């Protein structure tokens, strides 16, 4: 097996080579490269396919008990400072490699159908490949600095992909927002890394953990300071995994094409935060304050995402908030020390959420043939309905996804979510209550989404409704556009960016998507339904494979003293609340026995609170965005008037005094002598 490990670096490098080739082709021979559309795609996909095969082999080898592998080289050095980079293959890495490559592979196949008519088809593949390379690099990283490097690179790919349709104003704003919000997290991560390095002299996860414990026990480093460093590092995952309060970028990121919403903003990149917490586990677990901050952030985020998802009308935004909520679960799991449970949920979520997003993409693709290429219309669930008839495959797979995320056994989400809730209960009953309630809300909003989209009658042809949604979206754009610095904006005719394609809509009913799109959906449905069986409490294969470093023994012990009654009570409680949620949703949106509008009117403030996403965007806009602009403008004024003013004043005074003095140049020697005499006198008096 050794040669495989020697060449494991190929896994991130292969997609990188794909991206570089296609990218260079685009720059040097733009026309030709763009003309060879599918050839490029096949090249990129096969590169990633090779990486996927390698990843599977590595996983197989790791499952069969191969030793972890590590290889490093010196990357930067100055004096006695040496920074190494390299790659490592252990259980966690092999597991993440497989998730990332499989999802990326399927998403790339799907892309061929989804982007078939887009002029940026080839560029999109180049970006996708670049992202895959960075993400795989992040996974195999050996130390914090290397993680930070790839962490930023996946952020850059996310920026490029969100802003892929650069002529849409909303996309332009969203990509900048995503990058800047992530930089806020990186700011914390960077400071945390620096702090930990200062304290322990190392960037290695386990070395940091060991030395930090030594320092704390010997009393040389206060627990408070160590915890502060831990929390700073945690800020990185807070931004990347869209946790409260830095979650605001993820819903906006839905402006990007749907395949990347599935790959980056559901399955892989946003899960990188959870991955980093897992990597940092040796450091965090010794710091109870940090652990509880992580747990509570996760719980709050889970609740926040779910409560907002209830009222969203945009199918992708709804899924985005659901992602935020599910990421909250994972972070919560990490915070209560349920290492394997968190990663287990990461895996199940990666598959079912990628499928849900691809399903929503398929829906949008179908809707676009009716309402045109306007995201404000094509993604609005109020215009959908009854799509099951037109797109049965999509509907079926979407239903599997909804069941999985709602936690109905035996679908994947049940096993992982239940394990998290169980761990939360042992840690703090309050955390369990939050998680449990969220599970109910999750089931409710997911089935609301399913019923509104796939059941009932198709509403896409109601022109009055369309018009109304259009005006709404325009108003929204005025109210929340982060680019308010541009005064011309208000005079632009249509900020919602209705592109020119709007006019030609082909048909009055949506159609099922091509095979390249439905096939990945069907393939993803298999793990979404079944992969949870890897982690059943009866035979927890998953936990035996993925467990916190140095926790192997404990896992065995807990497995031995497994309590059936307790387990069944908990499981039925969570299934019960999920069923309540589903029933409510079907009463409201399938049978229309309860009018959701009446309820919304009754609890108007609460409804508005949820609808406006807890007013985070408004708050950040008025405090940070405007505040930053105001400060910048004031400083520039100071720069012009005070700093530069002083310089110009000096010049002016010099000019004036020169002009004034020239009248004293009379050419009379006596006068000069007088001046010299007076000056001398002055010096003498001062000196005396």
């Amino acid at each position, binding site marked *: 097996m050794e040669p495989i490990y020697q060449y494991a670096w190929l896994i991130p490098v292969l997609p990188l080579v794909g991206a570089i080739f296609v990218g260079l082709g685009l*720059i040097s021979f*733009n026309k030709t490269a763009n003309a060879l559309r599918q050839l490029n795609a096949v090249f990129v996909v096969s590169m990633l396919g090779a990486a996927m095969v390698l990843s599977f082999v590595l996983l197989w080898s790791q499952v069969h008990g191969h030793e972890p592998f590590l290889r490093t080289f*010196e*990357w*930067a*050095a*100055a*004096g*006695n*400072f040496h920074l190494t980079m390299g790659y490592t293959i252990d259980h966690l890495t092999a597991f993440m490699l497989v998730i990332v490559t499989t999802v990326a592979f399927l998403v790339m196949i799907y892309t061929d159908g989804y982007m078939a008519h887009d002029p940026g088809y080839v560029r999109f593949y180049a970006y996708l490949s670049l992202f895959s390379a960075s993400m795989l690099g992040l996974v195999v990283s050996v130390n914090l*600095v290397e993680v930070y*490097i*790839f962490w*930023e*690179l996946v952020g*850059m790919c996310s920026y490029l992909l969100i*802003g892929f349709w*650069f*002529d*849409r*104003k909303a996309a*332009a704003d969203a*990509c*900048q927002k995503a*990058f*800047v919000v992530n*930089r*806020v997290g990186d*700011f914390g991560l*960077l*400071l945390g890394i*620096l*702090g930990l*390095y*200062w*304290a*322990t*002299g190392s960037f290695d996860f386990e070395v940091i953990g060991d030395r930090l414990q030594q*320092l704390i026990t010997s*009393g*040389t*480093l*206060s627990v408070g*300071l160590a915890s502060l460093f831990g929390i700073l590092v945690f800020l990185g995952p807070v931004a990347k995994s869209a946790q409260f309060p830095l979650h605001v970028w993820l819903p906006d990121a839905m402006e990007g094409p749907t395949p990347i919403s599935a790959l980056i903003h559901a399955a892989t990149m946003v899960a990188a935060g959870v991955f980093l917490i897992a990597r940092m586990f040796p450091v965090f677990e010794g710091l109870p304050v940090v652990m509880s901050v992580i747990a509570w952030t996760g719980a709050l985020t889970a609740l926040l995402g779910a409560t907002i998802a209830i009222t969203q009308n945009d199918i992708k935004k709804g899924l985005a908030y659901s992602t935020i909520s599910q990421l909250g679960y994972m972070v919560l799991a990490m915070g209560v020390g349920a290492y394997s449970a968190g990663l287990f949920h990461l895996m199940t979520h990666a598959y079912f959420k990628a499928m849900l997003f691809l399903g929503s993409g398929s829906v949008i693709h179908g809707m676009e043939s009716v309402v045109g290429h306007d995201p404000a219309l094509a993604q609005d669930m109020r215009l959908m309905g009854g799509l099951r008839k037109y797109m049965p495959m999509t509907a079926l797979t979407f239903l599997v996804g909804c069941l999985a995320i709602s936690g109905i056994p035996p679908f994947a989400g049940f096993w992982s979510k239940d394990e998290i809730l169980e761990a939360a209960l042992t840690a703090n009953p309050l955390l369990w209550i939050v998680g449990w309630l969220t599970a109910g809300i999750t089931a409710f909003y997911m089935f609301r989404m399913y019923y509104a989209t796939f059941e009932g009658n198709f509403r896409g042809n109601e022109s009055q409704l369309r018009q109304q949604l259009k005006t709404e979206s325009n108003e929204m754009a005025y109210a929340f556009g982060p*680019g308010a*610095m*541009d005064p*011309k904006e208000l005079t632009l005719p249509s900020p919602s*960016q209705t592109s020119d394609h709007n006019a030609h809509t082909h048909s009055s009913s949506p159609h099922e998507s091509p095979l390249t799109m439905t096939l990945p959906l069907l393939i993803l449905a298999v793990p979404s339904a079944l992969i949870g069986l890897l982690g059943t409490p009866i035979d927890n294969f998953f936990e035996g494979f993925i467990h916190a470093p140095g926790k192997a023994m404990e896992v065995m012990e807990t497995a031995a003293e497994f309590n059936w009654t307790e387990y069944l009570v908990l499981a039925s409680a969570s299934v019960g609340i999920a069923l309540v949620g589903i029933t409510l949703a079907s009463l409201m949106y399938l049978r229309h026995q309860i009018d959701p509008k009446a309820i919304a009117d009754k609890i108007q403030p609460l409804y508005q609170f949820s609808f406006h996403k807890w007013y985070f965007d408004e708050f950040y806009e008025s405090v940070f965005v405007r505040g*930053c*602009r105001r*400060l*910048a403008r004031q*400083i*520039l004024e100071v*720069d012009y008037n005070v*700093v*530069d003013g002083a*310089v110009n004043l000096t*010049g002016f005074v010099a000019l004036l005094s020169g002009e004034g003095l020239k009248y004293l140049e009379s050419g009379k020697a006596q006068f000069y002598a007088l001046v010299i005499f007076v000056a001398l006198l002055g010096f003498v008096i001062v000196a005396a």
Partner: protein
Amino acid sequence: MNTAEFPWLTTIILFPILASFLIPFIPDHEGKTVRWYALGVGLLDFALIVYTFYTQYDFSDSGLQLVESYAWVPQLGLNWSVAADGLSMPLILLTGFITTLATLAAWPVTFKPRLFYFLILAMYGGQIAVFAVQDMLVFFLVWELELIPVYLLLAIWGGKKRLYASTKFILYTAGSSLFILIAALAMAFYGDSITFDMRSLGLKDYSLNFQLLVYGGFLIAYGVKLPIVPLHTWLPDAHGEATAPVHMLLAGILLKMGGYALIRMNVEMLPEAHVYFAPALIILGVVNIIYAALTSFAQRNLKRKIAYSSISHMGFVLIGIACFTDLGLSGAVLQMVSHGMIGASLFFLVGATYDRTHTLILDEMGGVAKKMPKVFAMWTTCSLASLALPGMSGFVAELMVFVGLATSDAYNPTFKVLVLFLAAVGVILTPIYLLSMLREIFYGPENKELTDHEVLVDAEPREIFIIASLMVPVIGIGLYPKMLTQIYDAKTLQLVARGRELVPTLTRPNTSVKIAEGIKFVEQPTQAPAIPSLEASK
């Protein structure tokens, strides 16, 4: 001929200058022959630089190499002495590289081409001389001489306010360089012997008060050049009016002279004063980073925006210089080289964009990506490089400065935490202004007012070539920084080791004693190799 005896550096300096004198005699029509001539001279000289350093220079030696010294005016003790060490070598390479590319960037210049290329070539030699000369008085002379071509390039080929800008530039920089002269003379006449040789000056035993005074004088002069806020206001004006090639030289090389001289004179010759001034440098560095990032964000003029961003990036050089760690100083040098290339590429793009849009006001642009996808791609790459994206050199430089400061034992933890926090705020501010800029130029719906009036053609091969040549080393260093750092490592190590001997005067064990002990506890294993070498050098 013995290659070791050959006056390599003198040849490198004089060749472009002498070649520039031939320009008036070249038969030429509308500058088409002259530009090829200038490019050829630039390339030849750059090749000579590369060859010299490749064959004649030993990277592991921290001392001066390629030393040449000729008596110039013996009555004054004035010598033409040039040499290179780890500090000047990367910057000489950078100068050759950027100036050659600037010649290529000047391709569309049609107004008075003979004079233009004459000045560019004269600057070529002048700039290298600044980095190579080892005689204080000659240093002052070349420092002043190199201002004249810049002044003319600004005043003749500049924008609308070029006279104001060039006058401001010349008064500002010439005025400030008076301090160099005064300080140099003071140092030369201090003590028993009168000498202008930098090495001998560095060995003189100055009193502390004298050092502080001289240090202050140098700081003003180099602070204008670097620039340090609040001595920076010439730069937005000069940059705002310059044409693209002049821009590339200003940002790519001229700013680096400030940093170079600061290390060469203030750190190397006046180490005791440096201990006192270092905290001030760090504070100034932080102010640079944040202040200029904010002003850049508020700027609506593209050129001035990038100009302010240069100021912001130079803040890291200041912090790196004052860290008293190998990593910090190494990061400062790397930041100079890295910004030399990134800054030059951004300014080149500004010029290329202006050639098409004929406006620099952001409000008058918007949505031009559709017409110019290649320009868009280049802008994105260079902006990402400028905002210190990992995988590019800017990131490595900033990271080294950050880690260098974090591990520095010269400052108390509270001060470090505060500085690191504020400098890291710069990490958030940089993408804000750079990405806003990209958004306003390229993203969104097309600005009809602009696209109706201007023909927006996409980038031509020459432009792509220039950006590619600048980005290849930027990415190369970003992927494997040792490639560059190892060629000057010996020098920075020696400098820092010398500076650190004097540091204990600065360490005041106060505030949290526990943490201070904590550092020692852990740093012992990592710092172990350094301690013997420190003692050995005593």
